[in-house]
């Protein structure tokens, strides 16, 4: 638990975000450059200072809009001279790329790593069909055959994480009596916070009746339990702590990372479907710090589906396993002025699916008191960020320089 933890040698020195919206029909590299240049400037750096890039998932043959910008496109566009870089899907969720960057700067392989995640799923959906459905590499045309994990689900008409997470939620409902009315609070809280976020996609008020009345997608998950495909890019700069001492503003400190996966890395073979893999990442996070859940001032927890957020709340110890439903009931506890303000920008359910990185961006916004109308009062000093769900999960505990 001492100060020698490797992640303490890394900080987040700057953040940036492109325009965010539905169907912007802008080139994903164009969005990425906007986010990257904003983050570099926010840190008080020049592109020439960037000697590393980390991204998720890199430029891959994946469903339309899920990827499209990799390390090489950004390196070439900005003519960066890199000493270290990494991109790829096989990591502890989207934050795995940031955790890689933390390790790289902490071990001296780079000084300032540009980390980014770019999505253009809304535009891709508009022109090429449903991008949130994972059909696996290679498309689904005539003669297409599924392999890898998808061979076990596609033949049964279960192509979407909506189906897989729904089965995890159903098991939680069964074992612990969790209800749709309770789960609704994740969506309602997100919408309330989104109303105070000018960049959020859906800002109109939502009521419990709206939630209960909307169409089902895959029981027990309804449309409002699923996040909103968006176009946008988010970037953060991970810097070596001693190289960031005199940058533009005090950085966000990395108190602890969580990247563990001990269970079976599978949507249907995971040992306890009511916990998901983020259980192991969260346990690792708390093993690397003296802070406790009671010290956390703001929580930014992945809501690709509402039920994932509930699992993060349990895994991180804000309540016991199985107690997530009663914990969020009524929504007061997780509100902006509650005991643990949650997804203060609106989350992916309302602000848009920036796929993990939006939560990290928002944690820094809150720690740096830049939240405007949605700023949590009292100057939050500790933020937890979790991204990923199902068999993927990574998390960060961030602190503000005092």
């Amino acid at each position, binding site marked *: 638990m001492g100060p020698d933890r490797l992640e303490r040698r890394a900080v987040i020195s700057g953040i940036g975000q492109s325009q965010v919206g539905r169907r912007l029909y802008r080139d994903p590299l164009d969005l990425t450059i906007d986010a990257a240049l904003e983050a570099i400037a926010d840190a008080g750096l020049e592109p020439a200072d960037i000697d590393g890039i980390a991204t998720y998932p890199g430029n891959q043959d994946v469903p339309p809009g899920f990827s499209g910008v990799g390390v090489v496109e950004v390196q070439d566009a900005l003519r960066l001279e890199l000493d270290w870089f990494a991109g790829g899907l096989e990591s502890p969720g989207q934050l795995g790329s940031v955790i890689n960057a933390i390790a790289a700067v902490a071990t001296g392989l780079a000084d300032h790593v540009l980390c980014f995640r770019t999505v253009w799923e809304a535009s891709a959906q508009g022109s090429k069909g449903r991008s949130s459905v994972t059909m696996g590499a290679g498309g689904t045309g005539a003669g297409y055959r599924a392999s890898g994990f998808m061979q076990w689900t596609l*033949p049964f008409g279960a192509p979407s994480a909506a*189906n897989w997470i729904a089965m995890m939620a159903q098991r939680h409902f069964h074992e612990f009596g969790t209800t749709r009315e309770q789960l609704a609070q994740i969506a309602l809280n997100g919408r309330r916070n989104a109303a105070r976020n000018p960049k959020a996609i859906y800002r109109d008020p939502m009521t419990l009746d709206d939630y209960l009345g909307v169409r089902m997608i895959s029981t027990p998950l309804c449309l409002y339990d699923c996040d909103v495909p968006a176009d946008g890019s988010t970037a953060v700069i991970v810097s070596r702590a001693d190289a960031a001492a005199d940058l533009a503003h005090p950085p966000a400190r990395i108190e602890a990372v969580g990247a563990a996966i001990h269970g079976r890395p599978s949507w249907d073979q995971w040992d306890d479907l009511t916990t998901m893999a983020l259980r192991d990442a969260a346990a690792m996070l708390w093993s690397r710090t003296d802070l406790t859940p009671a010290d956390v001032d703001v929580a930014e927890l992945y809501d690709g589906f509402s039920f994932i957020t509930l699992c993060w709340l349990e895994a991180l110890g804000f309540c016991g396993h199985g107690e997530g439903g009663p914990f969020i009931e009524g929504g007061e506890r997780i509100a902006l002025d509650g005991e643990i303000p949650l997804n203060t920008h609106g989350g992916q359910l309302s602000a848009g699916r920036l796929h993990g990185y939006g939560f990290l961006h928002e944690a820094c916004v809150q720690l740096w008191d830049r939240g405007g109308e949605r700023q949590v009062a009292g100057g939050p000093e500790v933020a937890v960020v979790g991204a990923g769900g199902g068999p993927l999960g990574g998390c960060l505990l961030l602190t503000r320089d005092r």
Partner: protein
Amino acid sequence: MADSKPFRVLPRITEQNEHFWRGGREGELRFLRCQRCGYWIHPPAPVCPECLSKDVAPEATSGRAVVHTYTVNEQPWIPTLDPPYVVAIVELPEQEGLRLTTNIVNCDPYEVRIGMQVRVTFEEYDDVWLPFFEPAGSAGGEGR
């Protein structure tokens, strides 16, 4: 009958998974099993995770299972595969945690419950026999 079948995306058959996807030709739900310690392995892998023996071979299971969890899919993800239909993870009695994802068929989708006893039934698509599960009845003792 073939004309009434909806489109389904089929698995790519390999030497490693053929026993699973074609066992239905003989009416058998087969998994790899360690020939040294008896551990059932799914998805197929060339080594037993319990004892690290590479002596693994397909064996037939009872074809009975319990619904571990499920969802009624109401979204038209797949052309011609009309909702609502039940996607479930079922667990076999042969070994704790021996599970697969499947469809529960031959019943009202909204009648499916966790803990329900089910049994395998196969449907042929091209060169693949998809293992679906149907209610096994409350007696739970009937053969298939």
